[in-house]
């Protein structure tokens, strides 16, 4: 029998507050065997990062490890002196932190950053260190010329590879990866994962992989632990979890993953039986172009964010606009909602051939007709105002309701988006609600004016996986009941497939493919679309490693 390299027993972590301490991690127990890929899955706030940070004892104040045992390679970390703990870090166990984009020092070259680690832990300097640095870059397939680059000169995927290379610098037997790919685009993410798996085959280290994305881990982990509210609710082999697991929470997680391949699953999101679209589009965008110019007199840097984009949306239709970061999809959202002015092109609303992009001042009627749901529910609500304020202001502003009819209308609206009882939620402040509840409020605000079209910019990407489908269901339901028109902007092809009738694929500011959702998924024409579809289908890892 293989011996465990990591053994955690009844780990408890508290955060000290002015009231009772918050128990962030409660009685977490697990073992990781040598050579294994162990996955720790949980939504935000589940305590998964706290567990590993407690393991390494790098939790900042006000955290305190209140109970438990952490044994790594027969060494009791919690009983060790601080010197031993520091010595253990990186030599025996290294960590790839969340958001590689911030993990690298912006003012040091890559060479210096790798040298730093080699010098501190292995006393390697000069040419020897250079030699090793080159070896490391070869491992992650990055050109040696890049050693003298600075982080801002590298793409997100390259930065992530370099962070992994630095973690491998002195070949620790165990590597912890804390959401290493969350900030990356799907296609790049898949490549990085394939690289990690490949490296593990060559070097044979043990991986503890932490993520919120269960779908990702199902591809390559050996065993999985699912965390919720600071506790492990299920720990099993990946096959058993994939089959549905035992705990209801696991079942819910597994059940809420849409897939971009195979037949459309039934009952995931409601769809109308048939679409009767009118001839005239409700929104028409023609040859839209947006050029961002850096401020300053001598600065001539230009960025073409959106280039010659045209599309139409009909009443009662849900159109998905799919693209990766930098594709210009959020700029399209801002242009359509007229938060920014286009450099060229025009936007026609409501089939009246009236150009709406001429003047600087946006007519109030346009503000009523086009509403938007933002990506970040924590940022799109003002923390100092109540839900009531957020919903009543637009209605007062457009003189749709008065003092008497306001409250019943708002309560009704809140209950429609699944916040019941409405009276209770109307009184709440944003910080008193969960992310999902806040996003429902944001949706209610967008719907309150009964707009002609709602632009939803990544409405679920900041939400926990288990509630994403429920939030999308609000749009699906409102479309069926109220003939709502939605421009659904997302990076996730699978969810666009389920919600949208038609999908537009955007790359580098240009539309590269547009088709009926199912047709686009089943027969993608462009290479890029094929890549996107493959990356969102189960079994992608085998396809890449082949």
């Amino acid at each position, binding site marked *: 029998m293989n011996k465990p390299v990591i053994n955690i027993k009844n780990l408890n972590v508290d955060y*000290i507050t*002015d009231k009772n301490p918050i128990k962030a991690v409660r009685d977490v127990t697990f073992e990781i065997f040598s050579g294994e890929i162990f996955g720790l899955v949980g939504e935000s706030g589940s305590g998964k990062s706290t567990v590993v940070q407690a393991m390494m004892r790098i939790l900042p104040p*006000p955290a305190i490890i209140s109970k438990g045992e952490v044994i790594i390679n027969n060494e009791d970390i919690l009983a060790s002196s601080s010197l031993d703990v*520091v010595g253990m870090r990186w030599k025996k166990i290294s960590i790839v932190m969340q958001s590689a984009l911030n993990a690298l020092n912006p003012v040091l070259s890559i060479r210096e950053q790798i040298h730093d680690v080699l010098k501190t832990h292995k006393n390697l300097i000069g040419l020897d260190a250079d030699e090793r640095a080159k070896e490391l870059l070869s491992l992650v397939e990055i050109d040696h010329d890049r050693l003298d680059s600075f982080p801002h000169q590298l793409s997100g995927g390259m930065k992530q590879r370099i962070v992994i290379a630095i973690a491998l610098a002195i070949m620790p037997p165990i590597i912890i990866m804390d959401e290493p790919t969350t900030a990356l685009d799907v296609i790049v993410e898949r490549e990085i994962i394939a690289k990690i798996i490949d490296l593990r085959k060559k070097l044979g280290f043990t991986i503890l992989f932490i993520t919120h994305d269960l779908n990702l881990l199902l591809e390559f982990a050996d065993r999985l632990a699912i965390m919720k509210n600071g506790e492990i609710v299920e720990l099993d082999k990946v096959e058993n979890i994939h089959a549905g697991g035992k705990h209801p929470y696991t079942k819910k997680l597994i059940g809420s993953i849409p897939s971009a391949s195979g037949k459309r699953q039934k009952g995931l999101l409601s769809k109308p039986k048939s679409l009767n679209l009118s001839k005239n589009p409700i929104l028409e965008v023609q040859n839209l172009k947006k050029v961002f110019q850096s401020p300053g007199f001598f600065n001539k840097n230009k960025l073409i964010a959106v280039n010659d984009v045209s599309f139409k949306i009909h009443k009662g239709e849900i159109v998905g606009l799919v693209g990766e970061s930098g594709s210009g999809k959020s700029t399209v959202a*801002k242009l359509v909602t007229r938060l920014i002015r286009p450099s060229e092109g025009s936007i026609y609303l409501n089939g009246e051939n009236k150009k709406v992009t001429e003047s600087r001042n946006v007519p109030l009627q346009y*503000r009523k007709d086009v509403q938007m749901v933002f990506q970040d529910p924590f*940022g799109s609500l003002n923390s100092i105002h109540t839900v009531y304020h957020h919903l009543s*202001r637009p209605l007062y*502003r457009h003189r749709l309701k008065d003092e008497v009819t306001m409250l019943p209308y708002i309560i009704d609206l809140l209950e429609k988006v699944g916040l019941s009882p409405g009276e209770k939620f109307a009184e709440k402040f944003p910080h008193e609600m969960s992310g999902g509840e806040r996003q429902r409020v944001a949706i209610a605000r967008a719907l309150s004016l009964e707009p002609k079209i709602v632009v939803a910019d990544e409405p679920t990407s900041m939400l926990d996986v288990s509630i994403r489908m429920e939030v999308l269901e609000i749009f699906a339901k409102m479309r069926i009941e109220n003939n709502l028109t939605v421009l659904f902007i997302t990076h996730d092809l699978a969810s666009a497939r389920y919600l949208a009738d038609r999908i537009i694929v955007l790359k580098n500011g240009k539309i590269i493919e547009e088709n009926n959702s199912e047709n686009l998924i089943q027969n993608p024409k462009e290479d890029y679309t094929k890549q996107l579809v493959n990356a969102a289908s189960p079994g992608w890892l085998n396809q890449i490693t082949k």
Partner: protein
Amino acid sequence: MINNKNIYKKSILTRWVSGIIVNQKAFIGSCIILFFGVLAIFVPPFIQSPTDFLSTPLSPPSSDYFFGTNGQGQDVFAQTICGARQTLFIGFSAGILVVIIGALIGGTAGYYGGRIDDVLSLLINIFLVMPGLPLMVILASWLPPSPATLLGVLVLTGWAWNARVIRSQMMTFRNRDFVSAAVISGESNIRIIVIEIMPRMLSLLASSFIGASIYAIGAQVGLEFLGLGDVSTVTWGTNLYWASNDLALLTESWWTFVPTGFCIAMISFALTLINFGIDEVSNPRLISERLWRNKIPKNKITHGITPVSNSNE
């Protein structure tokens, strides 16, 4: 059924006020300020006039004159209390004006950006590069001495830095989603600035006010000490001016300047305490960290290593 109005009233201000009262530092600071405020406003009618010749000049503290008398035979106790009136009034008014002007100019520049920002930023920068102290001294000596002059000089030399800080804070808020959401729902710019953004800046505005007040009181006392204020009025600054004029240090009559100096120090101390309190109210993490430090034995705190509590051993 809930009342529409009640929901509206449960505002950030109530949270703030209760936060400040609960916070020890802010509470002690507020008490000191309140004490001086009451002293300055209500006590003067009940004590001797600070400008009358009462007793032998430079007599040390006694039961008749708690703080003794100064070189003109005036009661130092009365002077200290009456001096608080104008000093605090000008100090706090300058603080308020600096914040209001800073918020108006900096806020407008940060919110609108573009050309408006270019012009206003230029104005701010011009005032920033002007050397404050010499300008203050020149203006104060050139204009006719009066409290209004003093106030004007203090505001003129003090507003630019605040405007700069508020401008950059406004620029970060300008691009937040909640502001975009308000724009999309059709709110007017003025309303977005005043109702949506300004309350979010309350902690910045409050600490700006406190910083500006400390600066204004210090600068004011300094100017008056140099004789650039109206020396016929009774303020903390002129008290020090007369003490120095009457050679208090040579005659070793410490009581002529120690009470005033102590009061100025106390006011600055109290304002700084309130500033700390505001920090803690707007950033609860600071409180948690203090509690954490108190709870864990000193020998267990090592920088960068999470402590393990005793219950384990």
